[in-house]
Every structure is written in structure tokens, then in C-alpha cells.
């Protein structure tokens, strides 16, 4: 005997499910890029005060952790770290607003990885991984804005949080988006209306 208040929350009719391994593959790529970005930023980015003074000031003065603020906004935008983080923000935006099915990593997965794997045991609703992309978008966007505004360590901090989320998703199949969605509903920020439109 079984009674469900509403039909299963699985893939809705007329909506194509996604292979759950696709988003996890994409999260793996994202995690590797983020780790590379963190390594780079710690080694030679003014946001962590690790660039040598001569890189920044002509007189070779010692550069402290606030060295990012010595740069103009234009110089901060042109930093390699800023450009890589902006690329990640754009990729998350792609997944969040165009849907996980249209994400470039998804196409890469379909072309290169899926032919080498067996068929998936089940297809999953694209809504949770798409929502998760939105979470990644917000975290990296906040980091990017603060970084360009000259806040030291904002980039490394945001990249570390995003890395942990992407790593947990890719390696363990943990769904941070599911968790945050519940907390947003409980806080009254998301409700029934947005649950339908999300």
C-alpha cells in the first residue's frame, strides 16, 4: 500500500532527465580549475600579498597583505586571477540560467565520457543540479566582486568554498544545492512559487 501526496518528484513528463554522472563530471573539472586558481593566487597574486614588491611598486617597497588596494580597479580587473574567476562565474551562470543540460561540460561529457560508460542506472531531474549551479554562481560572483573591489583574500576564500562544494558533489555525490534550497525555504526566502519556477 502506498500513498503519495503528490506524484513522485522524479523527472516530470515532457522533461528530459539528465545522466547524474554528467553534473558530477562537470563538478570535477570545476574543482580542478578552482584548486589551480587557489594555488596560483597563494603563490603570486596581490590579493594574498604574495607578489614581490617589484612587481607592483617601482621603488620595490615591501608589499603587505593590503597590496591589492594599491592597484587601480582596471589593474585588478586585468589580473590573471580575476580573469580565471570571471570565467568560472560565467560557466556557473551558463549552467544556472541556460540549464544544466546546455552546459558546455555536459556536452563534453556526452561526447567524450558517456560513450565509454555503461548506460546510467537512472536519469535525474535537471532542477537540482541547475540550482546547484546557481549556488556556485553566487559564491564565485561574491568573491569576484570583492576581489575587484580590492578586498584581500576574498578570491581565495570564495574559491575554497566553491572547491569544497564542487569536490563533495563530484567525489561523494553530495548535493549542496538540495541543502541550501531547504534552508532558504525554511528562512522564508523561497516558497511554493519559486519552487515551481526554479
Amino acid at each position, binding site marked *: 500500500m502506498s500513498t503519495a501526496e503528490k506524484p513522485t*518528484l522524479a523527472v516530470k513528463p515532457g522533461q528530459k532527465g539528465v545522466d547524474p554522472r554528467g553534473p558530477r563530471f562537470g563538478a570535477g573539472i570545476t574543482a580542478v580549475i578552482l584548486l589551480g586558481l587557489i594555488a596560483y593566487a597563494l603563490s603570486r597574486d596581490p590579493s594574498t600579498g604574495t607578489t614581490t614588491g617589484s612587481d607592483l611598486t617601482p621603488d620595490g617597497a615591501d608589499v603587505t597583505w593590503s597590496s591589492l588596494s594599491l592597484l587601480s580597479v582596471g589593474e585588478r580587473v586585468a589580473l590573471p586571477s580575476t580573469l580565471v574567476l570571471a570565467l568560472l562565474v560565467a560557466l556557473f551562470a551558463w549552467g544556472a540560467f541556460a540549464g544544466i543540460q546546455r552546459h558546455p561540460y555536459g556536452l563534453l561529457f556526452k561526447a567524450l565520457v558517456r560513450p565509454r560508460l555503461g548506460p546510467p542506472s537512472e536519469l535525474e531531474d535537471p532542477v537540482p543540479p541547475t540550482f546547484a549551479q546557481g549556488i556556485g554562481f553566487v559564491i564565485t560572483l561574491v568573491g569576484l566582486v570583492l576581489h575587484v573591489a580590492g578586498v584581500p583574500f576574498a578570491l581565495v576564500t570564495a574559491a575554497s568554498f566553491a572547491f*569544497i562544494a564542487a569536490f563533495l558533489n563530484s567525489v561523494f555525490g*553530495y548535493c549542496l544545492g538540495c541543502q541550501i534550497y531547504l534552508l532558504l525555504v525554511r528562512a522564508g526566502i523561497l516558497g511554493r512559487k519559486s519552487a515551481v519556477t526554479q
Partner: protein
Amino acid sequence: MTPLAVIAILVGIIALATALGLIWKAQNGRVRTSRGDETIRGVDVAAELGATATLLQFSSEVCAPCVSTHRVLDSLAAETAGVAHVEVDIVKHPDLVARFNILQTPTTLVLDNRGVVRARIGGAARPDSVRQELARIAAA
């Protein structure tokens, strides 16, 4: 920062993420026995409770593991006489979500024949442990 310090920090971040993942995995799907001082009536969830036990699953639209848990609990309810599977959306039942302090989806409450909450399962339900819990309730 020296390359060695950078590598140490990277290893630290990866270790932290791995530890979090292992903790989550160990907790996920574990059956916790409840004190038995909470009761849910059929009208609370707009469904009929099972004659022996009810598996009350809290789900949301944004929840990949809810789907697999739905399937597991549905087939358990089908194979066990008197056991009902009731799935509720957290958006539609904020009262229950607050009352039981639901912090993750899926969360499954195992109710006995009188609707008393006997156990709670956070995360994706494992068929074997749910079966065990149902047997314990049926024997009580």
C-alpha cells in the same frame, strides 16, 4: 608564499573536503531511534497512515536523492503489508518541517500504527536498515 606552504594549504583544503564527505557519508541514511513522544495524525499529512507502520518522507523539488529514496520506500511499502509510504513536500508543510526541525531532504520519519514517531532517517534511505526498523516496530 613558498611552494611548500602553498602545497600544504592545498592538501589541507582537500583533506578538509574529504573529511566532510566521509562524515556526511557515514551519517547519510542512518536510522536514529526517536524517544516516541511525538505523534503524527493522518490529517497532518493529508494521507492515510499504514495499519502497521508509515514511512513519512520529507522531500523537495530541488533534491536528487529524494527520488531514489522515494523508489526505495515505495517498493518497501509495496512488499510489506500494512506499511504505507507518504511523501510530503517541505514547501507545503512548513509546520511539520519546523516541528521536526527538518534540516535535510530527504528525511524520513518511521511511524508506528498509532502514528508515534519511532525513528528518523536523515538522507537517502537504505532498504536493509529500513526493513530492520520496520521489523522492530512490528515486533514491539
